[in-house]
């Protein structure tokens, strides 16, 4: 029984290999980028625009609004990172309706990679916003005694991010595969729909947690109530 698309190896040369995770990720990347290019190639700044442009505008502005609601004052700065996290995870689960496809997020390697990206991005954004000293001082708060716990918290939440997403996506795929062997008709469809739902929820959870971490790192000194809500 295959637990992750990592084990689906198409080509290998020593350390280098081309497994299912990477291939499906490329496919997702291609779809996302190609769709974006197709739609944004002929954007209209006027009041009349195409339906696809409308859809993308809704998605992008919704993500932007979400980031703003969490408390980041310049959502455009974080939109690239957080928006891509959400879109990638969401699309990975949405494409499970395609037969033969296995979500790359069902691989612990992918989720670990995403968690590592968050783990690196949080201090980067924090330092960019508050400076190195300011960012490091946040580990000593409320007192220096909390320093080890803060560091443990950093590491554990990254681990939690990776494992949570992996567990959910992998379990969805596993349940589907098991059900297909037990009850091949109808019931797997319901579970597939459930899997779509849990995939979307996980995408939201993953990106919103990353947003919260970044927000905590950047505005720890004082939550200034911006002019906008």
């Amino acid at each position, binding site marked *: 029984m295959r637990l992750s698309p*990592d084990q689906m190896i198409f080509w290998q040369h020593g350390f280098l290999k081309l497994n299912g*995770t990477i291939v499906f990720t490329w496919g997702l990347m291609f779809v996302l980028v190609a769709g*974006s290019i197709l739609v944004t190639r002929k954007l209209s700044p006027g009041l009349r625009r195409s339906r696809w442009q409308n859809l993308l505008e809704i998605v992008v502005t919704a993500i932007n609004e979400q980031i703003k609601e969490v408390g980041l004052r310049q959502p455009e700065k974080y939109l690239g990172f957080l928006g891509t996290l959400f879109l990638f995870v969401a699309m990975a689960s949405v494409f499970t309706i395609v037969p033969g496809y296995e979500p790359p997020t069902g691989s612990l*390697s992918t989720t*670990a990679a995403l968690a590592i990206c968050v783990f690196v991005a949080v201090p980067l954004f924090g330092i960019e916003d508050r400076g190195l000293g300011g960012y490091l001082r946040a580990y000593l708060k409320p007192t220096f005694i909390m320093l080890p716990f803060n560091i443990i918290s950093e590491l554990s939440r990254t681990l939690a991010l990776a494992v949570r997403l992996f567990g959910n996506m992998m379990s969805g795929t596993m349940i589907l595969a098991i059900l297909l062997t037990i009850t091949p008709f109808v019931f797997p469809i319901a579970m597939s729909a459930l899997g779509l739902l849990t995939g979307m929820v996980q995408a939201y959870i993953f990106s919103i947690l990353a947003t919260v971490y970044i927000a905590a790192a950047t505005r720890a000194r004082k939550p200034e109530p911006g002019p906008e809500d």
Partner: protein
Amino acid sequence: MLIDWFTVIAQVVNFLILVWLLKRFLYRPILDAVDAREKRIAAELADAAAKKAEAQKERDQFQHKNEEFDQQRAALLSQAMEEAKAERSRLLDEARKAADAFSSRRQETLRNDAHNLNQAIRRRTQQEVFAIARKALTDLASTSLEQRLEEVFTRRLREMDGKAKQGLAAALKTASAPALVRSAFDLPAEQRAAIQNALNETFSAEIQVRFETAPDLVSGIELSTNGQKLAWSIADYLASLEQGVDELLKEKHKSEAKAEPRPEAGTERKPEAGAGPEPEGPKPETTSR
């Protein structure tokens, strides 16, 4: 082992590439388009607000102008109405005056007409009366009447008062032609002699007398010499009566300055009762028939 570290590294790289690509092809264009649209909408809203303000301003101006126009119109209207009223009263006055003048003129004309008619009737009546009288007297006149007339004439001649007598005497003396005695009928010889005698006695002189018949005297005898005249005739009476009646009519319509054409051209003075011989001016006897 669930984690394949090569795959992890590859996925990190993949993810970073995806972030860059999506930033490049999705987020930036979409956000730019949204921003552009928002700016455009904001600009349009501002433009609309400006236009609205301008429209409001223009509307206010227009309203103001309208009110001004209304006021001016009302003022002009009231002025025109007043002028029309004044003009109307003026025209009415004129018309009333014209009507008054016309009616007074008409009344005048009517009065004149009535007056003229009255006068014509009077004149006519007068003429008829005198014509009848003259006709009757002419019919009545005869030789015997002439005798009586001669007697009356001689008596008058003898009873003539001093002043008239002197005038007549002087005229008779200075006359180169014989004195003329005119009568309506041819006088018989004894009457002529009686008149001659009376003249001779009255003026104590031999008076040359020439007798002549003049039917226009109606009935009577007239002595004329050198501009002086002594007469007694019914024509004289009639003439003086006409004169008297004319004067009466004139007096009655004194207001009129019109000279009435008289039916008789008699201008001699009214003879005194008894038709005493009186010195007359040099004007000739113009009793006409």
